[in-house]
């Protein structure tokens, strides 16, 4: 960025690289579903990691996947695209993707993009797991 921009320094970018572009991705089995918890900022920096992990899970024959956004602080269109791709792959294999999203602002992002139904966005993890275990509606 412009060097004359006050407060902007290479150090600031280095800090960002160290702390800002890592998603904390953890997987666990819970009540018959595969829960992928996403911590951090789901954005164009981290979308490749999210995509790779979801692809791994689908390749490993997981067919009931819940993406848990409880610890996610930001989500952008690229990450939404990743979730849509995973949902499409799963649907083609008769699998289901559901999303747990308690945060009001993130829920609003799903609503304004009309993705809350297609991505099965629920407020609680229990509801999302129930949703993922239900047969695909399509």
């Amino acid at each position: 960025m412009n060097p004359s921009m006050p407060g902007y320094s290479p150090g600031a970018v280095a800090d960002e690289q160290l702390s800002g572009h890592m998603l904390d991705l953890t997987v666990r089995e819970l009540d018959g579903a595969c829960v992928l918890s996403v911590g951090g900022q789901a954005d164009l920096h981290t979308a490749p990691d999210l995509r790779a992990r979801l692809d791994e899970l689908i390749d490993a024959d997981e067919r009931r996947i819940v993406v848990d956004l409880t610890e996610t602080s930001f989500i952008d269109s690229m990450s939404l695209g990743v979730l849509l791709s995973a949902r499409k792959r799963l649907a083609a294999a008769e699998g289901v993707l559901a999303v747990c999203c308690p945060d009001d602002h993130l829920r609003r992002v799903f609503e304004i993009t009309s993705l809350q139904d297609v991505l099965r966005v629920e407020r609680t993890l229990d509801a999302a797991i129930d949703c993922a275990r239900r047969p695909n509606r399509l």
Partner: protein
Amino acid sequence: MSRVTGTTLELEVPPDKESLSVLRRWLCAWLRANGIGEVDRKDVVLAVWEAGANAIEHGRHPPLSYHVEATIDEAKVVLTVVNAGSWRRDSRKSSGGLGLHMIRALMSDVRVKAEAESTVVTMSRRLDHPPAARPTTGPDVVSGSLPTEGQV
């Protein structure tokens, strides 16, 4: 030329992802310093993020730096993102089109002026609640250290 005052922000942003993250933190800090509430702030930050991402992903190749201007008054925040080249047609597909859709939904009024040499996105957000009293340190708040992640 970059200019930061209490109610005006003008930034020239390099067309890379790292700078987009810095822009996000700057904008968030500036909105916070102007007393913009959390809901308005998060919506505006996401809209500018998507506009910046489109400028990087769908503008001229190789990408050129883009220009961001923002002003705040009692009733609204107005932001303008100018980048060289037109957003390409394929930006209507996949995340590019989704990003523009999000911008339109997040902001009160959005105008996209696409010309051969530049794309100008002007977006405004009416404030449901007038900004809280601005800290007397005004501009200095913004020129201090960058805010840490998680404050968006």
